[in-house]
């Protein structure tokens, strides 16, 4: 079979699997977040915590819950990392330095999972499972909770109440994430991923060398790393490491996991607002952008521009033989467009233009289909902007799902879309102006600049993948990127919840002949156009200096 045909089959199989699963999963998630009943285990948790899961919260209370829980999460994880040398199962690794511990704590709590450390040589068993993996679960559940709160804002009227944060958080973990990860983790072990709490295992190779085989509870962490669109690898090589991702099957499973919740949540949204077609208009925009990205990067990587790739006869630098160009390109696009950031190949060695597509995928704001929860709320903000633009064109007060998009709503939406571009561009500019950017480059010229731009884009958009030649473990970058991650995660949430509160207070506007039909393909087209124009205008100059300059020179 030709590699191209195999690749077409691979992408088709993935799409078929997603189409089959999104419906039951989307409906199930809607049921989870609208049900009035609590499971027994959830009641135990609420009792232990002393939270009343039936209290309705208005947006400031909901936001306080999100921020308090996340702030405690940063402190707790920071503490674990700082004292890990004294914890059992540390494998003899030292405590993490203060700046790196801050960076890592910010990274995992913000669902970014940017890694300035190298897993196999710095993190022991407790730090990995009770520190990092816990945030993999809860940061994902926080993302889903905020998305659900925004959906309730559209679905509810004349109230201002958005649900209960603690209940949404616990339900996300207990009813959605854990069941899927248990199944996925066992499948990963069946494929060959490791799962143990042993020490570092020394063997003597055939030629008499000593080789240290890394241990770890890898499969259990892999499953949530991908399902929760986190992306922090157990090992430095992430999903390129054969212990994390041993073969073609585990690779497709991994890609499926990172796409499945983001692509199913629009169905949940549709169910909760009472029209699944509204959800399909949203998922249509997500899928279109993702699919175009997959085709572009796959084509570019097979064409392998770049002097080194040309000489080698293919773009295999930084790629594993068992995956090849096709499976690596599919993974790369899916991970950058879902805010996951795990990698099965190293993006730094992709061609200039493919690297540009990956960068653009993050710059869109992680909405195609985006991170768990954050993808949906990001896309809904874009939908609000698209409705507003359409309203301006015909001179009507814009409305979306029966809610007026007035001055207040537009202010929140505009603030939301300004935050990450500001962090990316200011962050990159400061790093370059102070010389810290250049000092951390592995590559030279335009590609070196791309490394810096990629780092600040990845952190601010909570992706976490890297042009990994970038030497991130310096005091400056650990601190600056840590701040970008926290601000890039939680400032947008403030505006999402404020918007949700404002929408939930309104009384619904009756639909008339002049109402924009937001469930139609025309709206999907308008939405894609809006996203492209906003992102393009914001980032084109920066892209021109980096990937475009490199790609067009080759």
């Amino acid at each position, binding site marked *: 079979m030709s590699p191209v045909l195999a690749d077409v089959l691979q992408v088709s199989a993935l799409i078929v699997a997603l189409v089959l699963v999104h419906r039951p999963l989307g409906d199930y998630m809607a049921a989870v977040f609208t049900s009035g009943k609590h499971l027994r285990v959830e009641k135990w*948790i609420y009792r232990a915590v002393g939270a009343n899961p039936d209290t309705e919260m208005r947006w400031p209370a909901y936001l306080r819950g999100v921020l308090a829980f996340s702030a405690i999460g940063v402190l707790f994880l920071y503490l674990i990392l700082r004292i890990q040398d004294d914890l059992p199962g540390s494998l003899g690794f030292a405590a993490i330095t203060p700046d790196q511990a801050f960076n890592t704590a910010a990274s995992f709590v913000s669902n970014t999972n940017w890694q300035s450390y190298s897993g196999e040589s710095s993190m022991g068993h407790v730090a990995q499972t009770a520190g990092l993996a816990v945030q993999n679960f809860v940061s994902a559940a926080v993302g889903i909770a905020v998305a659900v709160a925004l959906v309730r804002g559209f679905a509810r009227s004349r109230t201002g109440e958005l649900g209960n944060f603690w209940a949404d958080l616990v339900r996300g973990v207990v009813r959605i994430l854990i069941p899927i990860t*248990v199944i996925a983790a*066992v499948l990963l072990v069946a494929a060959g991923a490791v799962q143990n709490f042993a020490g570092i295992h020394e063997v003597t190779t055939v030629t008499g060398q000593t080789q240290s085989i890394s241990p770890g509870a890898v499969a259990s962490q892999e499953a949530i790393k991908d399902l929760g669109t986190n992306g922090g690898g157990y090992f430095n090589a992430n999903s390129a490491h054969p212990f994390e991702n041993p073969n073609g099957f585990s690779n497709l499973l991994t890609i499926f996991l990172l796409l499945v919740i983001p692509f199913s949540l629009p169905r949940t949204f549709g169910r909760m607002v009472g029209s699944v077609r509204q959800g399909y208009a949203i998922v249509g925009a997500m899928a279109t952008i993702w699919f175009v990205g997959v085709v572009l990067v796959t084509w570019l990587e097979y064409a392998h521009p770049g002097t080194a790739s040309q000489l080698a006869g293919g773009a295999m630098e930084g790629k*594993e033989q068992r995956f*090849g160009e096709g499976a690596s390109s599919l993974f790369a696009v899916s991970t950058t467009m879902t805010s996951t950031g795990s990698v099965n190949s*190293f993006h730094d060695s992709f061609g200039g233009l493919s690297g540009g597509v990956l960068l653009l995928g993050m710059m869109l704001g992680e909405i195609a289909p985006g991170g768990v929860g954050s993808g949906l709320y990001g896309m809904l903000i874009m939908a609000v902007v698209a409705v507003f633009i359409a309203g301006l064109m015909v001179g009507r007060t814009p409305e979306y799902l029966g809610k007026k998009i007035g001055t207040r709503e537009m202010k929140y939406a505009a603030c939301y879309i300004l935050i990450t571009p500001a962090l990316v561009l200011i962050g990159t500019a400061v790093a370059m102006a102070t010389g810290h950017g250049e000092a951390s480059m592995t590559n030279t010229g335009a590609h070196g600049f791309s490394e810096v731009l990629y780092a600040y884009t990845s952190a601010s958009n909570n992706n976490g993948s890297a042009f990994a030649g970038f030497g991130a473990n310096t005091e400056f970058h650990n601190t600056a990127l840590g701040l970008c991650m926290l601000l890039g995660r939680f400032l947008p949430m403030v505006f999402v919840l404020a918007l949700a509160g404002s929408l939930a207070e309104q009384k619904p506007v009756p639909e008339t002949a002049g109402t924009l039909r937001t469930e139609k393909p025309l709206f999907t087209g308008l939405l894609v156009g809006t996203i492209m124009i906003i992102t393009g205008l914001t980032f084109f100059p920066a892209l021109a200096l980096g990937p475009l300059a490199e790609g067009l020179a080759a």
Partner: protein
Amino acid sequence: MNNSVANTGRLAWAALRMLLVLTVVTGVLYPLAVTGIAQGLFRDKANGSIVNVEGKEVGSELIGQTWDLPKKNPDDENEVPRPDPKWFQPRPSNSGYDPLSTGSSQLGASDPTLTKLVGDTKKAVAAFNGVPESEVPKDAVTGSASAIDPHISPEYAEIQIKRVAKVNGLSEQQVTKLVEDHTEGRTAGFLGEPHVNVLKLNLALKDLAAR
């Protein structure tokens, strides 16, 4: 003011308790449950697919290793390793197949350093195997993502057959058959790329040569 401080304190306390409870659920119970299932059902794989030869552990099926000649001077850290012509050779690795230091070169596709490296490697691989440079496949001159890639392409195995057969005193047909037997196709016929596991191939080669 006092009221809001008290409220913040109460909220932080609730958040901490929630985090601790969820840490027990997702950070202790979950990994232990998965480990229990994994060790029960797939013991070998869960422990790293370790390969035993005559009761001795020689590596992991999933982790590549080096197949070099012994060092001339064992104490010289900077000595350039020389590939042993007796074995099938793996892909280049910037860490010498050290599992405690995974990750790739990170050099860009048009980077001058990488271009030079690819060119030099191509010459070396061609000379080592006695084939023209045009026959050297892409995986033989590029570093993998993990730097511990256990596989090479069937094409890279093929250009090594002649050399390996000669050094081990085997016929080319015998070695060709060996490579064919160890070539694994795409998973399920369409996932990923065909590949050859170097450790398994070399262990079979060792058996064949000893016979």
